[in-house]
């Protein structure tokens, strides 16, 4: 088995694995949002940026190679990951206290993990719509971070192509596959993988908001670094 090191720790890997996969298998958490085991890597959120032999790479897409020296937990990388998370917060409209996803939200949990205490950068306050047309699912564009997971889930897991990401630059936006442009006219159903994969509160299942009370939620007692490793190992 070939080896690489992550922050000095020797980690074995199988040929074809990415640095992220090797790290996860070895029980090392690298912050991420657009990555999910079992899905085609996307490499867009850039939270998993690591230094590989001195060069910045996305751990979720970069192939592991023998002898690589990977740095992940340096003060510089952690600070910059915090800034990248802040970029995601100011770009959209994320108000955790009034969001029903609080405590189950990966964006929020990553922010806690990275000790993000404020948004730092000026808010964009974009005007984004809410699509409440679907009987079982709500799509709140205010909280979309363009991680592409719902796009991949619908295409790869559900075989439906319900979602797509459109627009350019800061005008990027999530679109749905129906002539009306509304969620209710798509093929999306509540048991689709795409309906449950959203790491933030952009895609919500109706009538489930507070089934798990605040205080007993996924990230209320355990940081995302631990939850993520348990989940990702289990899959």
């Amino acid at each position, binding site marked *: 088995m070939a080896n690489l090191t992550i922050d000095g720790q020797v980690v074995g890997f199988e040929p074809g694995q990415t640095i992220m996969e090797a790290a996860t298998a070895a029980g090392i958490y690298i912050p991420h949002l657009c990555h999910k085991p079992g899905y085609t890597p996307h490499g867009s959120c850039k939270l998993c940026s690591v230094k590989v032999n001195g060069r910045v790479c996305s751990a979720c897409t970069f192939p592991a190679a023998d002898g690589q020296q990977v740095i992940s937990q340096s003060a510089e990388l952690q600070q910059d990951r915090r800034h990248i998370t802040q*970029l995601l917060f100011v770009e959209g409209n994320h108000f955790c206290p009034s969001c029903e996803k609080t405590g189950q939200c990966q964006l929020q949990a990553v922010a806690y993990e990275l000790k993000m205490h404020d948004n730092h950068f000026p808010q964009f306050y974009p005007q984004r719509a809410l699509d409440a047309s679907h009987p079982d699912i709500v799509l709140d564009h205010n909280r979309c971070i363009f991680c592409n997971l719902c796009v991949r889930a619908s295409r790869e897991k559900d075989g439906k192509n319900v979602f797509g990401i459109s*627009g350019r630059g800061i005008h990027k936006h999530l679109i749905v596959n129906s002539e009306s442009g509304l969620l209710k006219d798509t093929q999306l159903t509540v048991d689709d993988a795409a309906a449950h994969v959203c790491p933030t509160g952009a895609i919500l299942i109706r009538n489930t908001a507070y089934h798990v009370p605040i205080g007993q939620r996924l990230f209320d007692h355990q940081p995302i670094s631990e939850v993520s490793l348990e989940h990702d190992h289990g899959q």
Partner: protein
Amino acid sequence: MQKFIQSVLSEIEYQPVRLIEALRKCQGHFHYIPLECIERFAEALHLPRTQIIAVIEFYSFLHLKPQGSYEILISDSITDHMSGQKDLVEYLCQRLQVLPGHLREDGKLSVGLTSCTGLCDQGPAALVNGQAITRLTVDKIDQMAVLIEQNLPVSQWPSAWFWVADNIQRQDFLLSQPIAMGQGLQVAWQRGLAETLTGIEASGLRGRGGAGFKTALKWRFCAETVSAQRYVVCNADEGEPGTFKDRVLLNRYAHQVFEGMTLCAAIIGATQGFLYLRGEYAFLLQDLQNVLASRRQQGLLGANILGHGVNFEIEIRLGAGAYICGEESALIESLEGKPGIPRNRPPYPVTSGYLNQPTVVNNVETFMAAAAIAAYGPESFAALGTSQSAGSKILSISGDCARPGLYEYPFGVSIAQILKDCGAEDVLGVQVGGPSGTFITIEESHRLLAYEDLATGGSFIVFNNSRSIFQIVKNFTDFFAHESCGFCTPCRVGTSLLQKQLDKIVLGHGSAGDVVELERIAGLLRQYSHCGLGQTAANPVLTTLERYPELYQQQLKKISYEPGFDLDAALQVARQMAGRNDAAAHLQQVEE
């Protein structure tokens, strides 16, 4: 509409990879992409409609909402601004009674801005229904307004308006001795293809797009990848503001460019090639098709080329207004009919490019040079330039100089020499390599044009002392925010944030700490962006900040903190709605 859609589908032979071409035709016909087109294309090409919408919303020349029957786009490059673009746009809008960025109420016309159109040596430039107009003046606008009100089709407008000059000012190795048709291929086969590749290697030829990867090495990697199909792609998407050399090369030396592509195909074993032509250069398309046709007639393209058993075809695909498509993996995505979003690498295009097959992507000038090296041998090329930068480089010179145009120099020429030759006086500085390159001051004019000092894809914009650094930096920073593809977080948010932060300082709302903040955003962009666009988007800020730190500091107020919003400006909407403008309807930012 049914009939039109059907004819478009037949024209693109129902190939989803040619979706952009189909959408361009719809845009040309309807001046937007009607929903019915989207539905029919989705059905006929077996594409999700989301993918078609994503393509339309990605490219600047495609629209979901109706544009005017006369779609007027004014080039927004810094060189256009330097020749009075702002006043002309204002005049044009006033003359035609239209708001910039809007459709006139009668639906007849729309006026918008577009990124550099590659006509910087003869601006201010415009595109009217995709046709390039050079040297825009008040007089031309007056005449244009009359023609528009008379409903005269653009094809019947005075042809002199659409004349694009080549402006070749200095010729060297490439421009002074174009090869005869077929010469490169004939010599290559005489010498042997393997020997020809060794020759290209010995010549020291490196990619002319700016990155400088060794051409022979790229071809070899591609040839060595096991595959039944390989592709040759010529990158003619020169979108870097200030660059226009490929326009001239394709207008005058297209044979040699196609010969270089064919040579590459013979060496690596490719049967299909593409010329990816930026949408702004659509006016070159017909002539280029004619050149391809004549090459087919001469047996230089098609089946069994020159009797050597090599089959190779070249297809031209047009872009639709997206700077990012100059990035090779984004270009490949665009060739496949998708939004031009750069891919994750590895794998690199040489192993997995167009349709995931091994693909060589080279710049127009690189192919042209390869053909010349094949025809004349590597020695004369290698003898030019410096040890690390062999051969010559073609520059597109624009801005404050007496003789803008194309200049070919051996690598290693000094900036001072170039400035002298193009007739630049009272120089403040030069933007070498376009906005993604470097700003240098006149004090640095001893520096050399070479990969090891000032690398460049060819853009060379001269500024004299009447120009404002902030105006330049702002134009470039706005450009990157507009052209960011939006895929990765640092670039999508960072380019817009950098724009806001720069505006805050330039407009005099900055205070202590705001320059540090500007550097912080720039650092995130440079280090963490997915591709070269984001990694270089802060270069205008960083290279000028390095040279003029005091200029930035002078803009800052003497207070310790200035909020990111302007209290009084925020009340503007309320004042308008209330119809008030008295003293009580205004707020001071800081209480006195």
